[in-house]
């Protein structure tokens, strides 16, 4: 399809529980990005993939966060032992390779709102 599909839209977890978020990129897009929006307007880059390979993971908290993009499956972002500070909206974006992404930007999903209580 022509949209980036993120599921679930909302997720509530108790502190210490696991959270798993999913992202289906646009077919044919080879790059996938995850961003965390903690405060209302602050986007933090987490990780990017080129196909199923990690491209850049400089934004990922090492201890509790992990992500995968496997062939023929939605990409996933998993948070082990969630903390209150993980409460945020998590956005996934995808793009074509090469110069296309620079001219046309990335296509973002509508996000998953994670609330840790």
């Amino acid at each position, binding site marked *: 399809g022509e949209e980036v599909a993120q599921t679930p839209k909302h997720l509530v977890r108790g502190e210490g529980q696991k959270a798993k978020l999913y992202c289906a990129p646009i077919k044919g897009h080879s790059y996938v990005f995850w961003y965390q929006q903690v405060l209302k307007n602050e986007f933090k880059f987490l990780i990017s993939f080129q196909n199923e390979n990690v491209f850049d993971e400089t934004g990922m908290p090492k201890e509790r966060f992990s992500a995968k993009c496997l062939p023929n499956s939605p990409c996933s972002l998993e948070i082990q032992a969630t903390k209150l500070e993980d409460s945020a909206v998590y956005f996934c*974006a995808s793009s074509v390779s090469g110069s296309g992404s620079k001219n046309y930007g990335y296509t973002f999903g509508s996000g998953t709102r994670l609330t840790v209580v």
Partner: protein
Amino acid sequence: DQQVKQNSPSLSVQEGRISILNCDYTNSMFDYFLWYKKYPAEGPTFLISISSIKDKNEDGRFTVFLNKSAKHLSLHIVPSQPGDSAVYFCAAMGSARQLTFGSGTQLTVLP
């Protein structure tokens, strides 16, 4: 250390007039700049981009200007319409392809 800054959290403009949103950056290695528009409960939507080797790019009512020596870019919307009311994010891209976002400007276009 904020590499991309939008110093105006909000802007109100009368319908039909020009909206000018500003953005400053500090990293001279950024080679592309993009503007996104965001409505509540939705993801950011791409508006327009500009390469660091250009100083202007236009698409319909939207024009982006880049002043590389001042490390400053601006988005002009003319004429502004009530449907343009949203949060506008400036973003910059370097060789790692990830986007570095500013903190956004809430634009309100008054009818």
